[in-house]
């Protein structure tokens, strides 16, 4: 073997080694970007106007969640309480927390509604009936909302920069795995339960749930 050939062989061996190394580095970088950096970039973090303790309030009211989150007479659901409901107790600053002072001074006194960021807000095309699930279906709040009633503070609201929806819809896990019923609230999660319980499975197209059950 001539010296020239030997040299060529040597350099091609080196090139092969480098190629694998670069491939591995590139793969690792892509994986890190996709699984760690991208989810951070995708969601912006927003703080609620002030902090709120569900646990504290739950201990003070007599009717559990329904004390503040109730049904209206026409069957619609009130959702997040309006200022008028809070004012009954919060006319003046009660506790010593800074959040209480913010609430009373910035919202109660000028009569401004609190611009809460709603974690469970669904897209515009979704119709959800609390009455059907809670009254007729006999479901509890926790199945979909998780143990929010025991939380002592509000977590940051994470908004998807592309869709504008809350992260609670897709779920915390970027791969879409869930370990609780309340971890995600996409269409698949609704239909999973509907199929399991045979709820209004009367679509001609799919033989599953008709679209005009949850859509509007």
């Amino acid at each position, binding site marked *: 073997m001539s010296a020239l050939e030997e040299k060529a062989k040597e350099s091609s061996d080196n090139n092969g080694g480098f190629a694998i190394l670069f491939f591995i580095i590139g793969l690792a970088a892509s994986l890190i970007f996709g699984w760690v950096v991208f989810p951070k970039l995708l969601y912006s973090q927003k703080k609620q106007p002030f902090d709120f303790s569900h646990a504290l309030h739950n201990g003070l009211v007599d009717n559990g969640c329904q004390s503040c989150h109730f*049904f209206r*007479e*026409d*069957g*619609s659901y009130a959702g997040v309480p309006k200022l008028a409901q809070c004012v009954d107790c919060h006319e003046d600053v009660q506790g010593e927390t800074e959040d209480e002072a913010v609430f009373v001074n910035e919202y109660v006194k000028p009569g401004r509604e609190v611009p809460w960021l709603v974690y469970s807000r669904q*897209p*515009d*095309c979704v*119709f959800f*009936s609390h*009455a*059907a699930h809670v*009254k*007729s279906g006999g479901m509890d709040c926790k199945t979909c909302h998780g143990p929010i009633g025991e939380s002592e503070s509000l977590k940051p609201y994470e908004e998807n920069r592309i869709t504008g929806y809350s992260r609670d819809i897709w779920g915390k896990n970027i791969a879409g795995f869930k370990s609780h019923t309340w971890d995600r609230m996409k269409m698949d999660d609704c239909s999973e339960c509907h199929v399991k319980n045979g709820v*209004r*499975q*009367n*679509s*001609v*197209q*799919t033989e599953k749930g*008709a*679209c*005009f*059950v949850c*859509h*509007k």
Partner: protein
Amino acid sequence: MSAKEQKKAKRFGMVIDLDKCTGCGACMVACMAENNVPFKKDESNKLDSITWMRVFKLTNGKEYPDADVCYLPRPCQHCEGHDGHSPCVSVCPATATDYSRETGIVSQIYTRCFGCRYCMAACPYHARYFNWWDPVWPKGMEKMLSPDVSVRMRGIVEKCSFCFHRYQRAMDKAHLEGRRELAENEYQTACTQACPAGAITFGDLNNPGHAVYKLKQSPNAFRLLERLGTNTKVYYVSEREWVRRAGDNYLAHEKTGQVAAAH
């Protein structure tokens, strides 16, 4: 669907008395306002305008003193075909339109539709409309939109839903009160309530207690293009034979309503 559910299944539909309709167009206006239907600067451009409910003018083509006109309101006919095989539902490649055996309503899911317009070609009644543009509301008017109906974007098809959101709302109240059944007056479409002549009657065609059940059995009742087998849920009533004949393509020797009976 179990046998018990099948028994309870509803077929919501309409009976429109064409002899009462004056062609005022209140149904069209009510429909647009109720369903957040976008309007254009030039609504006379029928290639571009969207009218879920549209009033057509029919004439008998005769000279005075025999000249006669008839106004025919046309919502989506909510075809049942044979077991929900309606023309648009059977062609949709995206499962964006669907037939519900529970209500008999043909749905349109805007977020699912990708705008191929196959359904528009399949619909014999021109009840489907394509959004060539994103809706533009006059400043401030977006705050007056109904939150019960989602707005549509450019590039998708929309149509009359028999005000399905009103059914959803009425069912909400029923659930709260521990009921599963609605009274006739709890669920009515916007056009029905807006008609000053009372020409439109809406209800469950399967329910003998509802007004539509009797009205559709009138010897003067007919449906549009009945012999296509679309099995529509919008019935029309007119005492005038030329109007009943206008509802389908009759040959000169065919008797009015005769062919339709074969289905």
